[in-house]
């Protein structure tokens, strides 16, 4: 490891992977929440056109890609907000137009510059330059700060747009900010996983954490952890196995997803076998339901005919007979006359 870090290009590659692995799932969770998991792909397609323009005109490709992706992001949001049924088709035209333009323009330029199309499409992390790293660092810092500060608002808008609007939250403004942050993330991850695989790093870690997380907050941080481990791990593996970094990173993320799927399925089966459900009853326990509430470790049981009922998801668990069950009778009688 230490001799790996002694290599200049390896240090830069690992740093770039760390930034992308952190930022991508953080932004991606809101795309998953809005059921727009594939939108990053589309932005990647348009960013390729931006890269091509940069290569052709001798500009910095990262800059032109950023401009193209941000323009695409704003267009996507405005098309979505217009709510027209033709919007979906409009997006398809834009995305395929972007990638086609990119391929054609890059081929035009290849006689003069050794632009590597595959490198942009599938990631070529080891060619990341020092200036690239500085630009990525700044962009990633912007994405991280903005997402962390605004995460509750992004959550509100993605979770229930109609409520957010009625509560006076400027929905379109937040959606536009999120779209621009997504575009920036696409460009930051471009070198690491490549434009065709960019969505994978935004979506897969979230898909994995959603399998076992119990809250939005924990799901988000697990996704970031999985994203960082896949991208940094992927770079190390790709160096050792001499495989392309992008594909390796995404395969690791897929591996994490499959492992988590199997593990959660097994755990769910064991849990189902281990806990008892109370009999179904047409009654909701609550603070004034008439049944006596008793503390039980970290939760509250309700005494119901001498049985302890504990709220669990949409039903009640049977937490056993209560030794003082009989003195609950009058409470129960009270409940039934209600």
């Amino acid at each position, binding site marked *: 490891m230490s001799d790996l870090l002694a290599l200049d290009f390896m240090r830069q590659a690992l740093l770039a992977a760390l930034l992308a692995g952190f930022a991508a799932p953080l932004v991606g969770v809101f795309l998953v929440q*809005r059921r727009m998991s594939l939108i990053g792909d589309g932005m990647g397609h348009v960013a390729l056109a931006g890269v091509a323009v940069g290569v052709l005109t001798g500009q910095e490709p990262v800059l032109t890609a950023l401009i193209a992706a941000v323009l695409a992001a704003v267009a996507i949001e405005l098309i979505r907000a217009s709510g027209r049924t033709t919007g979906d088709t409009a997006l398809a035209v834009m995305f395929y137009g972007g990638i086609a333009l990119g391929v054609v323009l890059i081929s035009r330029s290849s006689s003069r510059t050794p632009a590597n199309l595959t490198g942009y499409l599938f990631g070529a992390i080891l060619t990341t330059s020092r200036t690239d790293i500085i630009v990525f660092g700044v962009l990633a810092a912007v994405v991280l700060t903005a997402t962390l500060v605004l995460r*509750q608002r992004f959550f509100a808008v993605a*979770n229930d747009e109609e409520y957010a609007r009625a509560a006076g939250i400027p929905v379109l403004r937040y959606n536009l900010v999120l779209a621009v942050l997504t575009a920036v993330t696409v460009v930051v991850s471009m070198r690491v996983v490549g434009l065709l695989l960019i969505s994978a790093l935004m979506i897969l870690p979230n898909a994995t954490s959603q399998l076992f997380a119990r*809250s939005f907050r924990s799901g988000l941080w697990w996704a970031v952890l999985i994203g960082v481990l896949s991208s940094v791990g992927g770079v190390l593996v790709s160096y050792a196995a001499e495989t392309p970094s992008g594909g390796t990173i995404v395969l690791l993320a897929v591996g994490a997803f499959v492992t988590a799927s199997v593990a959660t399925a097994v755990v769910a089966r064991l849990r189902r076998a281990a806990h008892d459900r109370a009999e179904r009853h047409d009654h909701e326990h609550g603070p004034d339901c008439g049944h006596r509430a008793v503390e039980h470790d970290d939760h509250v049981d309700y005494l119901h005919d001498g049985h302890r009922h504990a*709220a669990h998801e949409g039903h009640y668990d049977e937490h056993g007979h209560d030794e003082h069950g009989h003195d609950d009778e009058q409470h129960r009688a009270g409940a039934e006359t209600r």
Partner: protein
Amino acid sequence: MTSPTLVRLRSASFGYADRTVVSGVDLTVRAGEVVALLGPNGSGKSTLVRGILGLSTRQGGDVELFDTPLDEFDQYTRLGYVPQRHSLSASVRATVTEIVEVGRLPHRPWWKPQSRQDQAIVREAIADVGLADRAHEEVAALSGGQQRRVLIARALAGRPDMLVMDEPTAGVDHANQEALALVLQRLADRGTSMLVVTHELEALERVVTRIVCLDAGHIDFDGTPTAYSDHLRRHAVGSDHHHPDDDSPRRGHVIGAAPLDPTPREVTP
């Protein structure tokens, strides 16, 4: 002295794009009132409340909220909207607390994290709807009625002057309807004003102080629950309000088995 006016509509019409759904509506809601807005499917109930919230377009007439014309109104936190459940995205997991915390957002600038006071208000709102023991459970795992109560808690967390609810009892099982009615009763006792779109008056019977009936985009009844049952009796035969099971209903049962409730239940008085 009369209580302050929360909502005032004068020959207001609302709709979407080029389609008018409700028109010529005159309606005034005052503080302390609990108004049930009834009407068959497609009568424009939801469009009307969505219009008040600025979610559907006002196409004519005057709309005033808290004595401010709708176009100039910006104190959205004064209205607590409880939408129908299906507007909650379930594609990502979230706990009851995380959803209810959203209700506090309009009260602070975008850069400010939530304060201790915000957290206390959120806890209180969750306790108010009787879900304190499930505050950290996932919303998607709860039953429909419990999810409805989460949405009420979210609206309450905004400390509104009026709750605006869209079908809070629709598709909710009996036990949860009772729990929900208890919650609404408690809020009404505290003087919370409410405008409730509903099909099932039965669950809200003890809470409602006034009934407004919409039909085909117009108000065709506006009065007290007692006047409403008289109105129903008068229209019981040969009108589209007629329900085959309700020819000579007992009083109290009339409200329960409102003609709009597709499956009236026996109510024990």
